[in-house]
């Protein structure tokens, strides 16, 4: 095998690798208009009684879930909007923990976004008029990262702000349980 041939193979390989790296995640600082299926100002119903097949995941999920700018901004909002006041850093206090495997109102990102937007009984306030949809979905993306749902490369190994906790990339992944089992 001539060295010239080897060099061209290496060059082709390197080019292919470099081109593959072009597929970076999208950083969208503004919410994209998604075809509205529900009246403005309402969240879709995201809780289904046992046995009913769950509807398809909201189209917005792929924009926020696993998206690291969204998770980072969600973390900022989680601190600034005082989510820590009740949920602490995921461990839960006055509010339920967010880093475990139990989801009373569902652990899908659209279900979490709906819980934030509409509020839930016994203390969770509705944020629909206080934050934008974009911010609520970013918060939901961060809340999912508290139980290790996004892939490790999407969460930060160094948080945006000063923190004494272990980096998010070390968060163990919890299997999400349905609301029914969480009620047990």
């Amino acid at each position, binding site marked *: 095998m001539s060295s010239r041939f080897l060099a061209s193979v290496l060059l082709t390989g390197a080019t292919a690798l470099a081109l593959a790296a072009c597929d970076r995640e999208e950083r969208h*600082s*503004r*919410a994209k208009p998604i075809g509205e299926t529900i009246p403005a100002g309402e969240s879709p119903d995201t809780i289904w009684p046992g046995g009913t097949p769950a509807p398809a995941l909201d189209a917005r999920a792929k924009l926020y879930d696993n998206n690291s700018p969204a998770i980072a901004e969600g973390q900022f909002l989680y601190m600034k*909007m005082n989510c820590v006041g009740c949920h602490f850093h995921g461990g839960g206090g006055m509010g339920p923990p967010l880093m475990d495997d139990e989801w009373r109102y569902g652990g899908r990102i659209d279900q979490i976004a709906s819980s934030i937007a509409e509020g839930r009984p016994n203390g969770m306030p509705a944020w629909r008029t*206080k*934050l*934008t949809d*974009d911010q609520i979905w970013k918060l939901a993306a961060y809340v999912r990262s508290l139980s290790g749902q996004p892939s490790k490369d999407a969460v930060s190994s160094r948080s945006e702000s*000063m923190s004494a906790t272990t980096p998010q990339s070390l968060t163990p992944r919890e299997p999400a349980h349905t609301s029914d089992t969480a009620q047990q």
Partner: protein
Amino acid sequence: MTRLLRAPALLTPLLLGACDYQSYQSIFSGDAATEVHQFNILFVVFLVVCAVMYLLVLIFLATGILRARRASEAANVVESGRHNQSHPLMRSGLIAWGALVSVGLVALAIASFFADRSMAQAAAHEKLSITVTANQWWWDVQYNSGDVSKTLRTANELHLPVGVPVRITLHSNDVIHSFWVPSLAGKQDLIPGRENDITIVPQKVGIYRGQCAEFCGTQHAKMAFVVNVDSYADFLKWWSHQLQPAAAPTTPLAQAGYNYVTQGQCSSCHAIAGTPAGGTVGPDLTHFASRRSIAAGTMPMSEGNIYGWVEDPQSIKPGSHMPTIGMEPKDLHAVVAYLETLR
């Protein structure tokens, strides 16, 4: 273009750019603050001493080269290395040179000592205390006072009384930023979890521009602020005006804007004194329309710019924490009408 023309063509824009060097953001804008004044004196002393030394060295070097040429024409002369045998003129010349170097260094040391002391002097006579907290990407400004009712919070704008030593305490909420008003002082970093400070004694009434001088994220370039140096009376007038809560809206449109701002998304992050809006995430808006710029020096204050900023901040400053709400036009008109009353 011929080669002859290319060099002037490249140089002209540079030289023309230098015409604007005494703009309101420049380290050469003169004696706007004591610190800068002292520093400029020190700079001149260093420049003169070093220039004299440099010229002397060049002269000696040139004569050395010329002499060596002439000598080589005559014969190969090897110096003995014993200075007591060298020419008396050469000996006294070397002693004088040594003395000159010592005097020059001593002059530099003395000048630097006095400049340093006089800068430190200003810090010891602090008369006004301000806390500046940097955020991505805006400046939170708090005027401290022993009397809590005189404590004032504003953003992206500093008002300083002329001739009064001001101590500015610097904090950061997220990453490292740097506080830099080139006309008034050197750079000082704002470091998360640490307290830093800088003392300024402004000497000239005027408006100066400050800028974050440490790369802090995508919108680092749009993180500026305005320093307004006023006479003492004007400063006190400004302070007492800023202490007033926001005036109640008078027109129906402004009233609608008030309702939106205090009940909608705006108040989650922004505070307006005298209203239920009490968010601490974004800049205080109590006297928003009295400031010279919007969004930390991003745009000058004007009705059109307020419209643009409120409707779609993410197109003007992508990545900033202020979200694009997607307001209905009627809400937008109302909110802008209300914001304009916050003078």
